[in-house]
């Protein structure tokens, strides 16, 4: 009866207007939530679930320096799609099929024309993924122009929605790099005896964003800390020894870096050889680092570092407490013989949002959602993540910051260190309030309370 009512509503109001904004979804969602609270929403009453699978095209690096990150994402998505389909698919009714993968190494122009072609052909229900911040800034507006739903899962640049506030076909389930950079500021606030810092960040949007936010944030909280030098090695650098000896000469109290992937691995191993971690007191490595770095460094991993950033994406973080996390880690390890890295976690969050979004949309409209409805229904939701509730502010996730220190004291079946002594900094301390521009907020942040 109630579902029928909703359908009648739909026949009078065009669906496009009906679900124009996320606010509408939230209001209607709470209503529908009430009426549907009793028992399952009966899927037999839902018309229009398409017969063909839900077709996704992934965008990720399959070659070039960041390919390892793309590989984690691909691994995780293969695993998750299989799991979801084993349960019947989205809302148990519609299977997912990853119909194609586009290699980001082809560059933004090529990605944009592929996206336009896909939108014209109409054979794809949603595109998903993307590693590079720079690529996300180019591709997301293009997908939105073409009204092709785009679930952005990995890049961190805070500029994505701030530069393109009107996008209604784009949702990002990764926290922005504000969480990592401001999280690092929060860590410095808790450190004693830090007076000098050197920053080392990759020479593109991700690295410069981080350096600027970190420096501005330190200023804003009134930390008595001087950034004495900022270095920007090229992406994919293989010989950091000149940087290492220059930093070791300077011996700052703190080293801050958003280098990621193979770069942070090379940098740390050459840093160890060059005595870098004896020359600095502490290092904050916030470039989506975790298990893969600890795996590649093994016993050489220095102990006076904090690893982490925008999310609790460390395999042993709340591993015992959180069953879903434990299953994700165990299954991933069993399949791929390694622990999941950040690319895998980001992809997991994407699929969580997708499932949650489809379920919510179907509950509200009693029908399979259009692309725009689907994306709207992923706005302002929350779902479980290893760090607790993963909350979307509109189309953008706000992640807490989580940092840990390397330790051999863990129960996972790998012979390399993982993290311990976790520090959790809640999302509100490391993300701007909704509607406030990130840099404006960073310039004004208050010292952390409590």
């Amino acid at each position, binding site marked *: 009866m109630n579902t029928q009512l909703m359908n009648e509503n739909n026949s009078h109001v065009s669906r496009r207007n009906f679900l124009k904004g996320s606010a509408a979804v939230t209001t209607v969602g709470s209503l529908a939530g009430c009426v549907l609270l009793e028992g399952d929403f009966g899927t037999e009453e839902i018309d229009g679930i398409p017969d063909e699978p839900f077709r996704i095209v992934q965008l990720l690096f399959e*070659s*070039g320096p960041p390919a390892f990150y793309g590989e984690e994402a691909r691994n995780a998505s293969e695993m998750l799609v299989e799991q979801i389909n084993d349960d019947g698919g989205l809302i148990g009714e519609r299977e997912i099929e990853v119909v194609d993968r586009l290699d980001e190494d082809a560059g933004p122009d090529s990605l944009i024309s592929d996206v336009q072609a896909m939108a014209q052909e109409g054979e794809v229900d949603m595109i998903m993924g993307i590693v590079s911040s720079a690529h996300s800034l180019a591709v997301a507006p293009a997908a939105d122009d073409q009204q092709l739903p785009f679930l952005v899962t990995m890049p961190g640049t805070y500029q994505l929605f701030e530069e393109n506030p009107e996008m209604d076909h784009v949702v990002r389930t990764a926290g922005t790099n504000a969480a990592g950079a401001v999280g690092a500021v929060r860590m410095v606030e808790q450190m004693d005896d830090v007076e000098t810092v050197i920053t080392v960040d990759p020479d593109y949007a991700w690295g410069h964003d981080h350096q600027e936010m970190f420096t501005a944030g330190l200023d804003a909280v009134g930390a008595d800390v001087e950034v004495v030098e900022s270095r*920007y090695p090229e992406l994919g650098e293989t010989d950091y020894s000149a940087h290492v*000896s*220059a930093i070791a000469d300077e011996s700052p109290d703190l080293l801050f870096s958003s280098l990621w*992937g193979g770069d942070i*691995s090379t940098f740390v*191993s050459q840093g160890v050889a060059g005595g870098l971690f004896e020359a600095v007191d502490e290092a904050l490595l916030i470039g989506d680092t975790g298990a893969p770095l600890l795996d*590649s460094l*093994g016993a050489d991993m220095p102990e006076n570092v904090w690893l982490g950033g925008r999310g609790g994406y460390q395999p042993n973080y709340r591993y015992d407490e959180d069953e879903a996390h434990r299953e994700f880690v165990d299954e991933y390890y069993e399949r791929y013989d390694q622990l999941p890295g950040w690319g895998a976690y980001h992809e997991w969050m994407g699929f969580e949002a997708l499932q949650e979004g489809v379920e919510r949309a179907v509950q509200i409209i009693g029908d399979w959602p259009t692309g725009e409805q689907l994306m709207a229904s992923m706005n302002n939701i929350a779902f479980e993540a290893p760090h607790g509730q993963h909350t979307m502010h509109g189309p953008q996730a706000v992640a807490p910051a989580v940092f840990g220190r390397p330790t051999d004291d863990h129960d996972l079946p790998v012979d390399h260190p993982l993290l311990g002594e976790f520090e959790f900094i809640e999302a509100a301390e490391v993300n701007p309030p909704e509607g406030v521009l990130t840099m404006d907020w960073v310039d004004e942040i208050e010292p952390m309370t409590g």
Partner: protein
Amino acid sequence: MPIESLMVNTFNGLYFAALLFFASVGLTLVFGILNLLNMAHAAFYGLGAYVAVWTLNNMGDITTSTVVLLAVLVLVIPLVVFVLSAVLDKTVFAPLYEIEPVYQLLATFGVILMLDDVIKFIWGASPITVDGAVDPSRQLGTLDLLGISVSAYRSVVILIAIACAVGLYLMFVKTKLGKISQAMSEDYEMVQMLGINVNRVRIMIFSISVAIAALGGALFVPFATATPAVTLEYVLLSFAVIVIGGLGSLKGVVVAALVIGMVRSFGIAYYPALELAIVFGLMAVVIIFKPEGLFGDEGVVE
């Protein structure tokens, strides 16, 4: 500028120059003698790095003796790649010698992509480092050199590069193979008409060149990380070396590798903002004032 940091930066520069030398000397030889502009040359540097990291990590159960590990890096891996490249020369590269340089560039660029995918297919895309127990750079530790503490392993790499440069020079001026190949670089057809088996010489030169690149990759990896990015980075750097040094000149490679190594090392240390611009800025200056490179108008060992 304190004397210690001057020396540390010089050492870093020498080490980087040694790596550049390994990655690019074969490129210039293959072009100078065989007239093949092999863009894929430095991709074998990446291959050497992966083969080395894989071999070392699998040797842990057999032995962790530094001498054996170094012997594997310096002898076994180049030898394996030497044989492999002889096969590749007969198959993949043979048709390329006869075509115009622009097609050579395109075709050998294709070889880079193939090698890149082979590497990813076998070893995956995650960065791989040498395990501590079988890492000669850790085993050798540091040594005191005129008051500064430097990595003993990296000093060994610099010495091997010097030995390799001297060895190549002696090969060209003293051995029959060297003299024939010098003649081939002057007049390929004439050498062929004199009844010399140029194919055999070609395969030797090609395989030696590629093996040196693989040697460089193998020596590079204990002090770095094998990632898919290595291939492309050294392809670009090796082109910078031969543009600056001049195509086809052994001396050019040595000088250019040293110049780039030093300028980069001191540049990064004192003007970090310039890092990206340094190598290619240097290249631009050379192209403007001496488009053929510093020693481009000379023969292989003049």
